[in-house]
């Protein structure tokens, strides 16, 4: 039996490679406009015919075989047959943006020169026509000496033809010439590419490009930053306002189900585990699903339209003051959803110092896991009223917490660049892709993936820690008249933590929640939910967690708790991914240390300031 044939998809960033890959395999993969969104290996099964398949692998986007980034190094290694990441592909599919031939042909010429069986997909033909370009696939094929197929990947045009061409190429026996290597100088290749482009372009009508007109507004020196600020503010308001109805419905459902189970099951430890552990813990987290999805919806849309790169352009100069570059804006903005993909996205930053600094401050961006904690405390302690112009006070406080994280990050980055990651000023060079309408299917797939990941976390890490905490807080059983939580194992552990956190205004409930919250921040909510459910014998039924909190914490404590969560590195996944991306324990250890120190100081200052204002 021969092994499955391997077909690699290669091309420049922004050539529509990922969309073409999706169309060929139906694999679930995110499509974005940011150069280098494809930083991981993505493979799928390509159906060639009845019972015949090939393995299709989507190589990271690259401009040439001279690697300028880790992504490009992976691509080079695979197509050169160096075997470090992948076996030598049996065929290459080169994706070209029809509207950007002069540039994309250079990489194509390098790849064709390797001598692998090759097919060219002349992609985004529709956008080329929009720009007034008429390109001939035939002439291009004559010039390049390989088959050229016209495609519009996002509309699935030309996909069948491409599939047939791949099948034919794989079926025809052909000697694979040993790789000659990229012998030619980039500039020489570039000139050849321009000559071929001239021959392949039949006609060119000058048109006012939509992208240029849009950029005139979105990159306007005054209007541009205002639009960006309004956009960010709208996102944070929407996260609260739009999510409320579905979140309320979910919460109502969870409470109703919990009450039904409580009424159905016989009393005993099983009932306590299910009602106090599962429903109070996991349920408290699952209700935040709508907010997390709304945040991701915005990020996915901004990414797939091409606006993210514009945001980086607008922010570059400001970020350069903190020793960062505009490229860091995208990883950092992704970190608002989750620091783990954010830190992984720093691979597109070429400068190692810029990259390390970005990794170290990524956890300061308020990730979606903090949202449940913020949302709970805000709902319990901040009155739901407007401060004028339709701006809600709760939304404003939330915005303030996000802003505190961003300002903290800029200050930390500035300090890091002057101490541990000293170095010369970096650079900012980025391709600005054309604007595109977001593809509903791709956004939907992205959102679906987020929902699954979040619910899987709720079903595994959060469930496990919730159950462990329930057990720790339930045993040993309290003597009559004694408080259950105080008597339990968890109560004793919390007593130890309490000594440390008491000076910053944290009470016993918080001490109990901090340890399990190391697994993931949102577990803090589940932990508090579980503890209060167990402790609720003297209270009526299943009152909402907000009501219970409001009665038991002072405002100063609540604010200190919020300040703590702006900075505290309470996420095992982030620490793990930092270790992986920095190849060692040195930087994750540094990160955890400095973040805890800031969190402690910030919570302390917040608490004592609030007490001084009579809020204790």
């Amino acid at each position, binding site marked *: 039996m021969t092994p499955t044939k391997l077909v690699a998809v290669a091309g420049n960033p922004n050539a529509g490679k990922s969309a073409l890959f999706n169309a060929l395999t139906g694999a679930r993969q995110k499509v974005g406009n940011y150069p280098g969104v494809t930083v991981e290996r993505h493979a799928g099964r390509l159906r060639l015919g009845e019972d015949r398949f090939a393995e299709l692998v989507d190589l990271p986007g690259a*401009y*040439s075989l*001279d690697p*300028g980034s880790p992504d490009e190094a992976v691509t080079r290694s695979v197509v050169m047959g160096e075997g470090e990441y992948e076996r030598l592909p049996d065929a290459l599919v080169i994706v070209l943006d029809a*509207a*950007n*031939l*002069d*540039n994309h042909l*250079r990489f194509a010429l390098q790849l064709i020169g390797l001598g692998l069986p090759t097919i060219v997909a002349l992609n985004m033909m529709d956008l080329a026509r929009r720009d007034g370009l008429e390109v001939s696939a035939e002439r291009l094929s004559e010039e390049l000496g390989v088959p050229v197929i016209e495609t519009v990947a996002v509309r699935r045009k030309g996909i069948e033809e491409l599939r047939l061409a791949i099948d034919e190429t794989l079926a025809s026996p052909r000697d694979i010439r040993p790789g000659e290597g990229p012998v030619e100088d*980039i*500039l020489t290749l*570039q*000139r050849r590419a*321009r000559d071929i482009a001239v021959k392949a372009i039949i006609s060119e009508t000058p048109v006012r490009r939509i*992208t*240029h007109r849009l*950029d*005139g507004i979105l*990159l*306007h*020196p*005054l209007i*541009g*930053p205002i639009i960006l600020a309004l956009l960010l503010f709208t996102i944070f308001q929407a996260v609260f306002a739009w999510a409320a109805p579905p979140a309320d419905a979910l919460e109502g459902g969870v409470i109703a189900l919990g009450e039904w189970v409580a009424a159905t099951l016989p009393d005993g430890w099983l009932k306590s585990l299910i009602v106090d552990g599962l429903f109070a813990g996991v349920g408290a987290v699952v209700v935040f699903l709508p907010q997390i999805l709304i945040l991701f919806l915005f990020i996915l849309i901004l990414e797939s339209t091409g606006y993210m*790169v514009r945001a*980086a*352009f*607008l922010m*570059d*100069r*400001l970020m*350069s003051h903190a020793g960062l570059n*505009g490229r860091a804006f995208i990883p950092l903005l992704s970190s608002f959803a989750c620091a783990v993909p954010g830190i992984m996205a720093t691979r597109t930053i*070429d*400068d190692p110092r810029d990259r390390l600094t970005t990794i170290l401050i990524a956890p300061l961006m308020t990730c979606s896991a903090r949202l449940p904690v913020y949302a709970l405390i805000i709902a319990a302690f901040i009155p739901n009223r407007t401060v004028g112009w339709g701006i809600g006070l709760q939304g404003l406080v939330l915005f303030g917490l996000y802003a505190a994280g961003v300002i903290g990050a800029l200050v930390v980055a500035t300090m890091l660049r002057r101490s541990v990651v000293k170095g010369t*000023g970096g*650079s*900012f*060079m*980025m*391709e*600005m892709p054309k604007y595109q309408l977001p593809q509903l299917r791709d956004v939907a797939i992205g959102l679906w993936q987020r929902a699954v990941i979040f619910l899987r976390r709720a079903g595994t890490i959060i469930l496990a820690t919730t159950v462990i905490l329930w057990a720790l807080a339930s045993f040993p059983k309290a003597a009559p008249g004694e408080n259950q939580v105080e008597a339990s194992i968890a109560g004793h552990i919390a007593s130890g933590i309490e000594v440390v956190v008491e000076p910053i205004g944290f009470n016993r409930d918080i001490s109990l929640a901090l340890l399990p919250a190391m697994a993931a921040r949102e577990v803090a909510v589940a932990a508090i939910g579980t503890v209060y459910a167990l402790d609720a014998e003297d209270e009526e039924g299943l009152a909402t967690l907000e009501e219970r909190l409001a009665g038991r914490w002072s405002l100063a404590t609540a604010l200190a708790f919020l300040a703590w969560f702006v900075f505290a590195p309470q996420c095992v996944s982030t620490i793990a991914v930092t270790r992986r991306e920095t190849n060692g324990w040195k930087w994750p250890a540094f990160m955890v240390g400095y973040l805890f120190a800031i969190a402690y100081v910030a919570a302390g200052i917040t608490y004592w300031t609030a007490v001084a204002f009579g809020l204790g």
Partner: protein
Amino acid sequence: MTKANLPDTLALDQLAVGVRAHISDIDWSILAVGDALRLKNFGFDEGVAIEALHLGPFGRDPLAVKVGRMTVAIRRAHAAAVRVVPLAA
């Protein structure tokens, strides 16, 4: 750099927005290796058409320039290495 002293050339960071030009010379020696490679990859080369499209909002930095058919963002400091000849209107 003799070409840099020709009266009809100017550095890319001095090129007014909306004026079409072509690249006359690039001083690769003042660019870091990685930066030079990326500019080459973007298609920066002698004779290529170039136009400044937009300027960053703070300190008119970075610049969005159209090089060939591609639009790229680069910082003013790097644009200074590129000499251009504006096309007569």
